[in-house]
């Protein structure tokens, strides 16, 4: 079976059935179960969600541009997944702890991480951009699925402490095939851990369609592990917000984990190093553009009598400002000092590493003292 056969089944790339509160054209669909959870979301709040999504989209595209211009080594764009990320992140309390993969720029932004900090790791100046305890968000995880276990363990700890805070684990459709994610479901269920498993099914794991990972909607995985699974339109920020609140509420009440599958789409490449033309069609992308998470919110606002064009303009200006700030900050990020390679390997003194550091210090010093050691032969070297 080839990837395209797997698409042809249509089971997984066809977004329905899922919960949708706002259609792609901006119509509000009533839902008795979900609506109470967003009763507080008035038009102003919807406008704020729009603003969040717009700004992070702009930051994301600026980062892509910075990468193209050689300012970043790599960038994994979130374009298309704004509703999934903003809706879920805005459902959290400040003391809920976030464990994410490499693509969750929006939750980081919601948590007050500066975009330039976010990008520093992709520029290669730092191994991570922020202090997790300042933002209650772990540093991004590159090993697919590993963070699902971390979120579960942290949540177990919360429960043991008697806290009513929760954790959220972000991961992709591809990640559901890794042992770690499945083991996280086992542990979370067994210990009634207050964790929300938030799977962004963006249809692709690099070049692999979700149908290669699973023939079932991913949310159906949950039941067999002993937890509810909710499948939502991940491009509908209100559905995402409601579903995440439902899951968090269960967690806080000690009822354990919930699995959410947010059906969405990665509009851009996997990363800036990826060439999606090799594995998917323009048609497919066009189809998903029609399900854009931002336009439907504008349409909803417009239909509700809000000056959506005005909002759009105003937010665009803010977004541009954020992008300009980012650009200014990132291009002036200083390169780290050589000897910092040895920092933070250990907390406690380590005789072996101290010796190695000393040696490298001496080695570097040779280049400061012309004539000493090997420095007279640096011509034509790789440095």
């Amino acid at each position, binding site marked *: 079976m080839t990837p395209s056969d797997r698409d042809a089944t249509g089971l997984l790339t066809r977004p329905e059935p899922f919960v949708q509160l706002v259609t792609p054209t901006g119509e509000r669909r009533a839902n008795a179960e979900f609506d109470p959870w967003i009763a507080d979301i008035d038009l102003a709040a919807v406008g704020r969600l729009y603003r969040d999504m717009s700004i992070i989209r702009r930051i994301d595209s600026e980062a892509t541009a910075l990468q193209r211009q050689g300012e970043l080594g790599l960038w994994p764009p979130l374009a298309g997944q704004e509703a999934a990320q903003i809706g879920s992140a805005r459902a959290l309390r400040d003391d809920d702890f976030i464990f994410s993969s490499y693509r969750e720029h929006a939750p980081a932004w919601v948590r007050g991480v500066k975009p330039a900090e976010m990008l520093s790791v992709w520029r290669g100046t730092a191994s991570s951009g922020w202090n997790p*305890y300042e933002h209650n968000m772990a540093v991004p995880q590159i090993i697919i699925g590993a963070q699902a*276990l*971390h979120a579960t*363990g*942290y949540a177990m700890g919360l429960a043991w402490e008697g806290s009513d805070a929760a954790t959220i684990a972000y991961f992709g459709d591809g990640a559901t095939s890794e042992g770690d994610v499945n083991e996280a479901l086992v542990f979370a269920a067994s210990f009634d851990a207050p964790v929300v498993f938030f799977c962004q099914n963006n249809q692709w794991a690099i070049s692999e369609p979700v149908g290669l990972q699973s023939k079932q909607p991913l949310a159906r995985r949950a039941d067999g592990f002993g937890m509810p699974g909710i499948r939502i339109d991940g491009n509908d920020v209100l559905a995402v917000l409601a579903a995440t609140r439902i899951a968090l509420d269960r967690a806080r009440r000690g009822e354990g984990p919930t699995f959410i599958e947010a059906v969405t789409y990665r509009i851009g490449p996997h990363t800036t190093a990826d060439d999606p033309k090799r594995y998917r069609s323009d048609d497919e992308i066009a189809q998903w553009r029609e399900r854009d998470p931002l336009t439907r919110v504008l349409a909803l606002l417009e239909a509700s009598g809000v000056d959506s064009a005005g909002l759009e303009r105003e937010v665009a200006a803010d977004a541009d400002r954020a992008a300009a700030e980012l650009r200014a900050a990132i291009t002036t990020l200083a390169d780290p000092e050589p000897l910092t390679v040895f920092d933070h390997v250990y907390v*406690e003194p380590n005789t072996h*590493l101290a010796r190695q550091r000393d040696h490298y210090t001496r080695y570097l010093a040779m280049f400061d003292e012309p004539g000493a050691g090997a420095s007279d032969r640096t011509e034509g070297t790789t440095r």
Partner: protein
Amino acid sequence: MTTLTLAKALNAGLRRALADDEKVVLMGEDIGTLGGVFRVTDGLKAEFGAHRVVDTPLSEAGIVGTAVGLAYRGFRPVIEIQFDGFIYPGFDQIVAQVAKLHYRSRGNVRMPITIRVPFGGGIGAAEHHSESPEAYFAHTAGLRVVACSNPADAYMMVRQAIASDDPVLFFEPKRRYHVKGEVDESASLADAPPMGVATTVATGRDVTLVTYGALVQTARDAALAAAEDGISIEVIDLRSLAPVDYAAVAASVRRTGRLVITHEAGQQGGVGAEIAASITERCFEYLEAAPVRVTGHDIPYPPAKLERHHLPDLDRMLDGVDRVMGRPNSLSGVEA
């Protein structure tokens, strides 16, 4: 002073750690109700409750990965891996997360996780129950690796490992679990020698014999046997495998001029290779002969009836001593 088996000394050390710091939690398969297959955690669940001594689902990646999350939250998880050969499903979480998170987070997140591993052979067990995987972890930056060899060390070192803010792989010589020794349960952590420090367990002039874990006792026996032959062996119990206490080993080798390293793990890329290389770097001018390694063969762990042909024993250690001394030995007359 109390006389305790090594297993009971560990039990006492764990009890003390649980009592001293409420953030210490034990996790593992069968460690609660059963008290562990070696009974090292016996009675601790009854004493501290199921949230402190946690029977986990059967999944090593799950145990280590949730411990990472717990450490993120400020806990100090102490994991029991049931047998050495079952650590590999958790390998990714150990080398890619536990070892690297402090570095990755630029010092913000600490991983004070202790991973207890009953290790080594000599108990007539089935496959995967007698391995010595310590070199994998000694090669992994960000981890500390220690091995205890006697009840007194077991008691203090497990407490030190738990108190350490760095992750520690803690290897326990399972075939010595039942060996008894004196333990000072009133000793304070601060007074005990740090776990990074090697111990000279027998002094000698002719050869430095370095080992750790279960083989420390065999090495002492070898030193006694050699003494009868007029050969004086200094035996060093490394205790810490990463980092190695090279100051201690080098000081000894500078006196003896000869080094033999012995361990149960295979030779190729074992801890002995690193020690031989590092000591040669440090003591080249003092060495009378190349350091000799007496190790398990580079084979999967053999069936129980053959393990005595795999594990270094007293005779093989003495043959190694003969090699380094240039006395008649198993390689006599063989081209290098």
